[in-house]
């Protein structure tokens, strides 16, 4: 099964992250994982920070019989995701939310997150605009670190969490921390793209 990249049109959403090499690397990784995802028979799948919606919509096109959710802190991104879903005749539920703060526990079998990973000043982590697409604060890890301790409560027991990391995010620290929470890891992809060294890491129990 081939994971087709969803069609998208951001012409009316200038303040939304345009799918880039990191987004496409993520899609490559999910394509590689596709067999595992089918076998998992996931019921609820969520993307955190869906931006244009290209990743969750590509998944929704390929995987049948699952419910697809997309959250973003930027309302424009939620609208863009809603439109991308429509453009590809898939049903994606968009929500404007900070991470997965308002979901009940253990609801998701798959979580996908291409986070704001660029190393910036902590002050850049403000507002809900396009800056939130990349501003990651110290080590580019501030948003990632807010999410990690919550993963055991968000994910169902058989669940999988896919996360993109940049070399500067110190992936080993993230992997070690997740290990203390009981998660095994696997690096699905790593690639040097336009001066950035990126990893797609899979975590599960």
């Amino acid at each position, binding site marked *: 099964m081939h994971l*087709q990249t969803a069609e998208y049109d951001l012409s009316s959403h200038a303040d939304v992250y345009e799918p880039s*090499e990191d987004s496409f690397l993520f899609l490559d990784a999910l394509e590689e994982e596709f067999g595992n995802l089918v076998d998992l028979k996931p019921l609820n799948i969520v993307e955190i920070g869906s931006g244009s919606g290209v990743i969750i919509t590509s998944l929704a096109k390929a995987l049948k019989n699952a419910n697809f959710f997309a959250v973003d802190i930027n309302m424009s991104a*939620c*609208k863009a995701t809603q439109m991308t879903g429509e453009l*590809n*005749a*898939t049903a994606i539920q968009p929500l404007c939310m*900070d991470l997965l703060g308002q979901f*009940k526990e253990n609801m998701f079998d798959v979580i996908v997150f291409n986070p704001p990973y660029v190393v910036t000043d902590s002050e850049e982590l403000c507002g809900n605009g396009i800056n939130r697409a990349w501003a990651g604060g110290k080590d580019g890890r501030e948003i990632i670190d807010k999410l990690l301790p919550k993963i055991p409560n968000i994910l169902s027991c058989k669940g999988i969490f896919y996360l993109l990391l940049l070399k500067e995010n110190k992936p080993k620290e993230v992997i070690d921390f997740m290990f203390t929470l009981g998660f095994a890891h696997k690096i699905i992809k790593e690639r040097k793209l336009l001066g950035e060294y990126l990893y797609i890491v899979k975590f599960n129990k």
Partner: protein
Amino acid sequence: MRLGLTPAFLVKIVSSVVLIPARSVHKSELVKMKLLTHNMLTSKSMKGVTVGYPLGINVVDIKVTEVDFNPEFISRIIPKLDWSVLWKAADTIGQLDDLPKELSQEYENDNDFLKKVHHVLLEVDIVNGELVCPETGRKFPINNGIPNMLLNEDEV
């Protein structure tokens, strides 16, 4: 990450995912807020809130769309639901029909029942309205099907 500087052709070269334009099989519409989603949301992360569940619903308008019925899929969703919350939500927005208040034991083979659940879970959409925290009364607006769950700094 591209901060608006990389030429688009480079992005395509570095990606091994083939960019095939999607064909819309049939005309679809923007997805609005489902009662399934309502069933999964809580305001517990707010300061001073202990349970925050279920959220109240105030509806301005709803929309009903036909979605393909898959009984096996609906049977898999049911164990994840809070049934009484779903029942009450359906009642609140006037879509109860004759959905039973108690979940029957052998629903897996009860196609009529599964069809009703399918309808309230996936075919009824809230377009505009609000979700309400049961403890603080804090309202979360739903505009064009997108609930805005963002909290202010002093609320967390």
